C-alpha cells in the first residue's frame, strides 16, 4: 500500500510538472468519458432502470394479432374471457385512451382521458395520493360514473384542492364523481388529465368481439410462472375463442411480451447505436492520450532506466506507469462527470416523445459506478502499451543514449494508433452519414399533402348538445363553413383522422373477387372526410374526381382510394368505376385515386398499407353519431397558430359556447415531431462523429508534428541532398495520408460490417451506400492532408545548413 501511495504521489507530481500534457490529456479524456457517461445515463434510464411500478419484472404486455396483422389492439370481450379463464397471472388489467369534454365550467376543456379496468392501478401497485381506486362495481356497464384526476390536472385545474373528493365533474354531459387523485410521480405512457373506468367506453365495444378499440392489456405473472407458460396459457384460451367465435376470431391469438421490452423495443437499436458511437469517440480520445503518453515515455526513458538499474523490477515499473495513467484517467473521468451532468440536462431537455415518460435521465449510483469503472478501464488501456514498452527498455542502449529499438517501436506504435483512430472515425462517420442520408431522404419525402400553413385541432360534438344525426351533421358542416369564412383562411375541412396525427384502419374486399380468409382481409387506413378534404389538404387526385355536393345520403356510395390500393388490386387498369366492400360489407364505387399519404410518419412501417376516403355527408344516420362526435379540423390560412387560433375560438363561441377545442398544432410542427426521434439520434450521432473527426484530426496532426520534430535532421539531410520544398511536403503529407488511407480501408471494412447493426435505422439507402463510404473516405483523406500539411510546412522551414552545424 505504501509503495502504491508513493507511486500515486509521484504520478501527481509528474502531472503537476507537465501542465500542458496533463491539460491536453484530461480535456481529451473528459470529452470521451463525459460523452459516454451522458449517453449511459440515457441507456440506464431507458433500458436498464426498472420501471417505476411494483415488481416491474412480472409485468407482461398483451395485445392480439393474426398472421397477417401481428399487432392489433385487444377486443374487450376477448379481454373479459382471458381474465376469467387464465391461470398464469395474479390479474389482468386493460387500458385505452380517449377524450372527454369537461363542461359546466367557465372554460370548457377537452380532457385527455385514460380508460382503465378497476384492476389497472392495483396491478401496477399504484395508490391514489388522495381518495381511493375504482371499485369493481364501478367498472361494469351502467355502473356509477366516477373519475380520478391526474396530479397535474388536479394542480392545474383545481389548485390542489384537497376537498375535491366527492365533487362532480360534467364529462361528456354526464356528472362524474371525483373519487381519487393520482400520485405526482406516477407516469404511464403520455400523461392524461383524467382516469375513468373502462366501462365508460361505448357499449358497442363490449358487444362486438371483432372490434379492437385501441385497448391493450397488462398482466402480472404469478410467482414462478414464466412468460412462455403464460403465453401457452393465453394462447390456449385464444384457440378456444377461435373455435367459439370463428367470424371474429378465426386467426386471432394473444401476443405477449415483457412490458419493459415492449416499451423500449423501438428505442433499443437507436440507443445501442448511440452507445457504440460514443464508445468510438472514447477510443479515439484514448488513442490520442496514448500517443501523448508514448511521446512522454520517450522523454522519460532515462528516468525509468535509472529506476531499473537501481533494482526496480519489470512489474514494479509497469505498476508505476499504470498508476500514473489510471490517475490521469480518473481526473479525466471526474471532469467528464461534470460535463456529463450538464449533458444529461441537455439530453433531458431535448428528449423526444418516443422515449417513454417512465424513463428519467439522471446520474445515479449506477451511472457513477459506470464512470468509475470506465475511467479505471481507460486508465489501464492508456497505460498498458507505454508501460509494457517502457518496462522493456535496454539499459545499455538508453544509457548510451542510442535508444534505436525503442524509438522504432514508438514510431510503429504511433502509426498503428493513427491508423486505428482513422478507422474508428471512418466507421462512426459512415454511421452518421447513413443516418444523415436517411434523414435527408425522409425529410425530402413527398408526404402526399401540403402541411404548410395548416392548423389542426380537435372539435367535439357530444350527444348532450347535439343529440341527433341531423343536429350533428348541421353543426359539423356549419363549423366548416364558419371557419372557412374567417378572413385569411383559404380552406377549412374536417375528417375523422389526419395523417401523422391519428386515424383508424379497417378491412375491405374487392367486389366480385373471391373473399379472403376470415381475419385475413386487407387493411386500409380510412378517412371519413368533408367533401373539400382533398383540395384543403393539398392531396393530389391522380385519377377520377373527389367528393361533390351530390355525394349525399341516398346517392350511390362513393369512395376515393389511394394509388397503392389502385395499383395493387387493379394493376394495368383503371380503379375508377370499380367497386369495393367495407364498413360492414357495404358496396362503394371508386370515383377517384388519390396520392398515397405518409400517414404513419416518414420512414415508419405501415401496418395498414392502403388508404381510402369516404365522404362524411354520405355516412348513414346510424353511424354519423359514432363518427361525428369527435373530428379533427384542418384550417389552412396565413399567420400561424397564434394568429388563427383566437379567430377559430371566436367562430366556435358563436355556434357552441361549450365547445372544448383541443390538440391544437400546426401541421408543420406535427411533421417535425414525426421525425423527432430520428433527429434526436441523428443529432447525437452527428455530434459524436464530428467530435471523432476533430479528435482524430488532432491525433493525426500531433503524430505528424511529433514525427516531423523527430525527423528534423532527416529533413535537413534531404534538403541538403536537393529535396525541394515540394518534395518535403510530399514526404510528410504522403506519410500522413498513407496512414490515413490504411485507416480508411480498415475502417471501411469495419463499417461495412458494423453498419448492418443500423439496419433498422437506415432507410432509403443501403448500409453499404457507396456515396456515404466514398464521401467519408474523401473527407477523412482531406482531414489527413490538412492535419499533415501544417507540420509539413514546418518541416520545409528546416534550415539545411544545420546538417553541417550539428556536426
Amino acid at each position, binding site marked *: 500500500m505504501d509503495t502504491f501511495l508513493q507511486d500515486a504521489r509521484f504520478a501527481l507530481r509528474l502531472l503537476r510538472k507537465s501542465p500542458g500534457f496533463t491539460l491536453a490529456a484530461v480535456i481529451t479524456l473528459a470529452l470521451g468519458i463525459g460523452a459516454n457517461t451522458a449517453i449511459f445515463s440515457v441507456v440506464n434510464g431507458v433500458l436498464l432502470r426498472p420501471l417505476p411500478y411494483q415488481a416491474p419484472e412480472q409485468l407482461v404486455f398483451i395485445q392480439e394479432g393474426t398472421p397477417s396483422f401481428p399487432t392489433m389492439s385487444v377486443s374487450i370481450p376477448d379481454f373479459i374471457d382471458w381474465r376469467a379463464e387464465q391461470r398464469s397471472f395474479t390479474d389482468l388489467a386493460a387500458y385505452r385512451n380517449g377524450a372527454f369534454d369537461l363542461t359546466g365550467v367557465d372554460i370548457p376543456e377537452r380532457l385527455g382521458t385514460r380508460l382503465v379496468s378497476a384492476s389497472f392501478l392495483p396491478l401496477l401497485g399504484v395508490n391514489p395520493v388522495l381518495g381511493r381506486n375504482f371499485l369493481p362495481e364501478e367498472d361494469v356497464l351502467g355502473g356509477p360514473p366516477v373519475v380520478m384526476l391526474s396530479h397535474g390536472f388536479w394542480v392545474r385545474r383545481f389548485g390542489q384542492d384537497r376537498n375535491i373528493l366527492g365533487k362532480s365533474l360534467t364529462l361528456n354531459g354526464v356528472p362524474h364523481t371525483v373519487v381519487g387523485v393520482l400520485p405526482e410521480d406516477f407516469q404511464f405512457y403520455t400523461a392524461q388529465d383524467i382516469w375513468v373506468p373502462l366501462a365508460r367506453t361505448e357499449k358497442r365495444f363490449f358487444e362486438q368481439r371483432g372490434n379492437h378499440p385501441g385497448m391493450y392489456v397488462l398482466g402480472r405473472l404469478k410467482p414462478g410462472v414464466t412468460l412462455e407458460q403464460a403465453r401457452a396459457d393465453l394462447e390456449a384460451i385464444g384457440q378456444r375463442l377461435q373455435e367459439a367465435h370463428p367470424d371474429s376470431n378465426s386467426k386471432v391469438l394473444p401476443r405477449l411480451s415483457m412490458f419493459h421490452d415492449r416499451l423500449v423495443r423501438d428505442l433499443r437499436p437507436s440507443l445501442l447505436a448511440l452507445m457504440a458511437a460514443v464508445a468510438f469517440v472514447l477510443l479515439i480520445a484514448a488513442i490520442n492520450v496514448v500517443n501523448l503518453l508514448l511521446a512522454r515515455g520517450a522523454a522519460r526513458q532515462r528516468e525509468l532506466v535509472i529506476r531499473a538499474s537501481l533494482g526496480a523490477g519489470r512489474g514494479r515499473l509497469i505498476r508505476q506507469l499504470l498508476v500514473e495513467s489510471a490517475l490521469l484517467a480518473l481526473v479525466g473521468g471526474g471532469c467528464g462527470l461534470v460535463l456529463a451532468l450538464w449533458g444529461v440536462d441537455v439530453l433531458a431537455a431535448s428528449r423526444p416523445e418516443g422515449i417513454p415518460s417512465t424513463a428519467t435521465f439522471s446520474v445515479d449510483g449506477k451511472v457513477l459506478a459506470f464512470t468509475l469503472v470506465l475511467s479505471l478501464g481507460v486508465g489501464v488501456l492508456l497505460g498498458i502499451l507505454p508501460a509494457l514498452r517502457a518496462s522493456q527498455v535496454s539499459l545499455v542502449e538508453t544509457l548510451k543514449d542510442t535508444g534505436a529499438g525503442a524509438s522504432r517501436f514508438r514510431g510503429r506504435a504511433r502509426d498503428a494508433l493513427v491508423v486505428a483512430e482513422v478507422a474508428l472515425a471512418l466507421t462512426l462517420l459512415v454511421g452518421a452519414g447513413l443516418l444523415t442520408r436517411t434523414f435527408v431522404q425522409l425529410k425530402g419525402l413527398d408526404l402526399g399533402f401540403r402541411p404548410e400553413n395548416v392548423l389542426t385541432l380537435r372539435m367535439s360534438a357530444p350527444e348532450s348538445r347535439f343529440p341527433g344525426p341531423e343536429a350533428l351533421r348541421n353543426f359539423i358542416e356549419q363549423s366548416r363553413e364558419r371557419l372557412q369564412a374567417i378572413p385569411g383562411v383559404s380552406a377549412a375541412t374536417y375528417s375523422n383522422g389526419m395523417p401523422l396525427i391519428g386515424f383508424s384502419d379497417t378491412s375491405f374486399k374487392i367486389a366480385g373477387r373471391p373473399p379472403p380468409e376470415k381475419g385475413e382481409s386487407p387493411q386500409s387506413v380510412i378517412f371519413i372526410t368533408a367533401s373539400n378534404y382533398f383540395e384543403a389538404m393539398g392531396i393530389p387526385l391522380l385519377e377520377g374526381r373527389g367528393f361533390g355536393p351530390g355525394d349525399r345520403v341516398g346517392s350511390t356510395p362513393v369512395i376515393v382510394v389511394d394509388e397503392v390500393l389502385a395499383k395493387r388490386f387493379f394493376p394495368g387498369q383503371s380503379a375508377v368505376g370499380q367497386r369495393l366492400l367495407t364498413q360492414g360489407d357495404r358496396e362503394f364505387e371508386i370515383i377517384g385515386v388519390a396520392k398515397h399519404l405518409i400517414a404513419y410518419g416518414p420512414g415508419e412501417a405501415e401496418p395498414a398499407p392502403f388508404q381510402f376516403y369516404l365522404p362524411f355527408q354520405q355516412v348513414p344516420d346510424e353511424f354519423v353519431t359514432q363518427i361525428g362526435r369527435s373530428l379533427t379540423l384542418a384550417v389552412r390560412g396565413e399567420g400561424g397558430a397564434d394568429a388563427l387560433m383566437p379567430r377559430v375560438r371566436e367562430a366556435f363561441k358563436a355556434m357552441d359556447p361549450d365547445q372544448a377545442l383541443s390538440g391544437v398544432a400546426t401541421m408543420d410542427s406535427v411533421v417535425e415531431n414525426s421525425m423527432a426521434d430520428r433527429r434526436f439520434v441523428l443529432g447525437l450521432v452527428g455530434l459524436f462523429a464530428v467530435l471523432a473527426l476533430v479528435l482524430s484530426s488532432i491525433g493525426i496532426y500531433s503524430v505528424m508534428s511529433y514525427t516531423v520534430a523527430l525527423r528534423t535532421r532527416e529533413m535537413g*539531410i534531404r*534538403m*541538403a*541532398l*536537393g529535396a*525541394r520544398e515540394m*518534395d518535403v511536403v510530399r514526404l510528410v503529407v504522403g506519410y500522413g495520408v498513407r496512414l490515413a488511407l490504411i485507416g480508411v480501408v480498415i475502417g471501411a471494412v469495419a463499417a461495412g460490417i458494423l453498419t448492418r447493426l443500423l439496419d433498422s435505422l437506415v432507410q432509403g439507402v443501403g448500409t453499404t451506400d457507396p456515396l456515404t463510404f466514398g464521401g467519408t473516405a474523401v473527407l477523412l483523406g482531406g482531414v489527413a492532408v490538412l492535419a499533415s500539411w501544417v507540420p509539413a510546412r514546418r518541416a520545409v522551414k528546416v534550415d539545411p545548413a544545420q*546538417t553541417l552545424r550539428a*556536426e
Partner: protein
Amino acid sequence: MMTVTAVQTQETAPVETPSMVQQKALLQLEGITKVFETEEVETHALSDVHFAVRPGEWVSIVGPSGSGKTTLLALLGLLDTASKGTYLLDGRSVLDLSPAERALVRNQHIGFIFQSFNLIGDLSVYENVELPLTYRGMPADERRKRVERALERVGMGHRARHMPGQLSGGQQQRVAVARAVAGDPLILLADEPTGNLDSKNGEQVMQLLSELHKGGATLIMVTHDPNQARLGTRMVSLFDGRVVQDERLR
C-alpha cells in the same frame, strides 16, 4: 570569362601559375561576407572572402574552431546564403537563386559528405544512395545503374539491402560517399569526413577520397587534421572568417 585564383590574404601572397590563370574556375567566390545578426550582436562569420576552385582540385580548408570553415562549406554547398558578395558556380551566379533553384543546383552539381554520415536510418543503403537521384526525377532504370555503380565504386555493393544501423561507421561513411558521387556532381564537399571514425576506418575513407580525386573529382574538404589536409592539392587556411593562407601543395 577571365578568372583568377583571387585569394587575398593578410599574410601570404596568392600562388598562381600561368596555366591555372587560363583554366576556367569551377567555383568562384568574390567578396563573400556572412553576417549572423542577433538582437544585439552582429557576428561576421566570413569577411570579404575571395576564393576560386578549378576542376580537378582537392582543396583542404583548415582553421581553428569558429574560423568560419563550416559556414564557408555551407555557402559553397548552397545550404546557406551570403550577406554580401558574388558566388559563381560553373560560371553561373548562384547567390540570388530561389530556394527551389538552389535545391536543384545542390542536387545536380554538389555532392555532400558529412562528418556524421547523415544517412537516413529508415532507408536501406540502396535507398539512401538513390535518394538524390530520386529528387532529380531520374528514371528508375538509370537510378539503379548509377546506385549500383556508386556502391561498387566504394566497395559497398554487397550491402545494398542493409539498413544503415547494421553497418559500421566506416561502412556508413562509404555509403555516404557513394550517395555523394552517384549523381556525378561537379564538386564534392566533405565536412570532417573522418571526424566520427577510428583511425583505420578514417584512413580507408581518405583512401577512397584520394581515388575519387585521381578519377577526376573536384573536392573541397574541411578538416582539422593537418595530415589529411596535406593529401589535397591545395590548403586554404581560415582565421576569424578570413582566408589567411592559400597554399598549393602539389
